[in-house]
């Protein structure tokens, strides 16, 4: 068994290593999603007829999904709040409510996409739909990854191990929420 010391805090920043790593992940994600959003703004301004395609997206489905993600963000911050107070059962419960939120989001997205594809609005229909499926798809993949990591962490929390990790997955989940907050008006409201 190794007796090597484990660095848990960087002396330069005073930030726990895990949290610092998550912030760096968020930093790289800002470039990925920032690039996507910037592309949309440029192309939408250049091709005003994108508005005609955007008119076929469901504002109601987008609004419900925004509500679901905002609520799941509340649950994960409550999980963090409970974990800091060593209330591991409550933290476990809130983490699974958050996962439920992610699942609801994906189910609504699945229904929405099925309907749109059935109407002929596929990823190859035109540039707008290519963008729509790419941006929402990359975002949905982040939701799936977050749910998997959260499920793994939840069982650690139940055994009262690695409680600070609840905060780390929380930061990631809130970022995924923020990305959707920007995608919602771009894809569903600007028609």
């Amino acid at each position, binding site marked *: 068994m190794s007796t090597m010391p484990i660095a848990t805090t960087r002396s330069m920043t005073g930030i726990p290593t895990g949290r610092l790593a998550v912030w760096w992940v968020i930093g790289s994600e800002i470039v990925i999603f920032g690039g996507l959003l910037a592309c949309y703004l*440029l192309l939408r301004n250049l*091709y005003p007829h994108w508005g005609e395609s955007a008119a076929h997206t469901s504002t109601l489905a987008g609004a419900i999904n925004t509500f679901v993600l905002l609520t799941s963000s509340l649950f994960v911050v409550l999980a963090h709040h409970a974990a800091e107070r060593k209330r591991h059962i409550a933290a476990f419960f809130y983490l699974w409510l958050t996962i439920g939120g992610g699942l609801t989001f994906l189910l609504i997205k699945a229904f929405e996409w099925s309907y749109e594809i059935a109407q002929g609005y596929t990823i190859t229909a035109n540039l707008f739909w290519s963008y729509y499926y790419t941006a929402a798809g990359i975002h949905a993949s982040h939701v799936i990854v977050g749910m998997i990591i959260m499920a793994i962490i939840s069982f650690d929390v139940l055994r009262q191990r690695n409680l600070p990790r609840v905060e780390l997955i929380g930061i990631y989940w809130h970022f995924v929420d923020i990305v959707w907050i920007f995608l919602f008006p771009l894809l569903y409201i600007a028609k």
Partner: protein
Amino acid sequence: MSEHTSAMHYVKIWAVLLVLLIISVLGPMLEVKILTLITAFGIAVVKALMVAAYFMHLNIEKRYVWYLLVMMLLVVGMFFVGTASDIMKPDGRNWVNRAAQDLRTPAADVSADSQQQAPTAH
């Protein structure tokens, strides 16, 4: 990081976020362009800042994280400015970007796809 914050504080932030969501959906229904920009995109910025400040605890996070995030936003801005001039102007005095010009008309956009997808006779 949230040792001194009560759970009710987060519920209040969530309630404010929901009110902002309702405004961002209802505002554009009035179909006034400036109002749409403010209610949809302005409120999106406010909502994002609220989530970052109160749920991600950026309001009490160390400055290093702020520097990191601002630096990444500047990188995005740099890419944006670097490519915007080319994308926004698909023609010039001595050159023309035909692909970009074609995409300016919805008919061309759709017909290009329909040509690719046209079934071949056997």
